[in-house]
């Protein structure tokens, strides 16, 4: 299909053809059945689409459209405060727990040793898993796939 034919066809649909272009376009259609078929096909598609419209969402949807901005800012700030607060509380709890654990004279040494080894092991395990996750996340080619 030549660019010229496409230009004439599209301009024809827009009713913007100059008289001499219209003449040229009609001549092309009359002389070439393939072009005539193309024209009929394009015209048919345009007519079919003209009968259709995109459904407009309800007015409530539009009324609330931009409130999303406030929702997102609120959520972002809420999550940030929640996580920061939780981290602070957990951190404080750990420090206090360790302090009282060390200061506790009543528990036997073997129990203290066992708990200390257990906690260190748990922390190392958590660190290892976290590091693995972060390393894999960077290089995993299947990361888009939901597991």
């Amino acid at each position, binding site marked *: *299909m030549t660019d010229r034919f*496409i230009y004439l066809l*599209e301009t024809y649909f827009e009713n913007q053809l100059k008289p001499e272009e219209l003449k040229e376009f009609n001549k092309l259609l009359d002389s070439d059945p393939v072009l005539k078929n193309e024209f009929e096909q394009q015209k048919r598609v345009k007519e079919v689409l003209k009968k259709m*419209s995109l459904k407009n969402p309800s007015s409530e949807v539009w009324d609330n459209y931009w409130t999303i901005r406030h929702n997102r*800012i609120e959520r*972002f700030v809420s999550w940030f405060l929640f996580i920061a607060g939780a981290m602070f509380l957990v951190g404080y709890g750990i420090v206090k727990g360790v302090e009282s654990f060390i200061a506790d004279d009543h528990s036997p040494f073997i129990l203290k040793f066992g708990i200390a080894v257990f906690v260190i092991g748990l922390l190392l395990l958590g660190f290892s898993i976290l590091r693995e996750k972060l390393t894999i996340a960077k290089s995993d080619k299947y990361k888009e796939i939901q597991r």
Partner: protein
Amino acid sequence: MRKKEYSTNHLTKKEEMEFALLVKENMKRAYFSALGILGNHDLAMEVSQEAFLKAMNHFDKFDRSKKFFTWYYKILRNLSLNKIRDEKNRKQVELLEIKKYSVSENDLAVNFEKDETAALIEEALMKLEPNDREILILKEFENYSYKEIAELLELPLGSVMSRLFYARKKLAKALEGVEL
């Protein structure tokens, strides 16, 4: 993880009001343009809003002598195409897992007035590549001029005409055998 910025601190009260007005003026065509690319109501809403948020955060880079929608459309288009890529990856897995593809109530069918013909056309439209669907929606449903489409898609006028012609041709092919 994609960085999301929701701060509006850099905008003055006046700019915020100006931006809110721009959203109001452009939200419908933003939604319909996104719908043209994505073919899904929920995604079109989500992406068009996300694009406005992004535009707001970079509002200082917007050249006021140019049309807002042309600038915004580039953001919208990029986000929509990213969304399609993400959704494609997700759907591939869904297909492998459940061995069937179910059409969501939110898909383009609901966005056309529901009748059989609309459903058939919608199905054919959804068979097209997003680029073809996008240009058809812009021209045939949103009634943009060739010049406006050329500006939005950053294409020469001749390419817009040519892409429209071939998109209609593909749609005609997808509608083959359908009694309309």
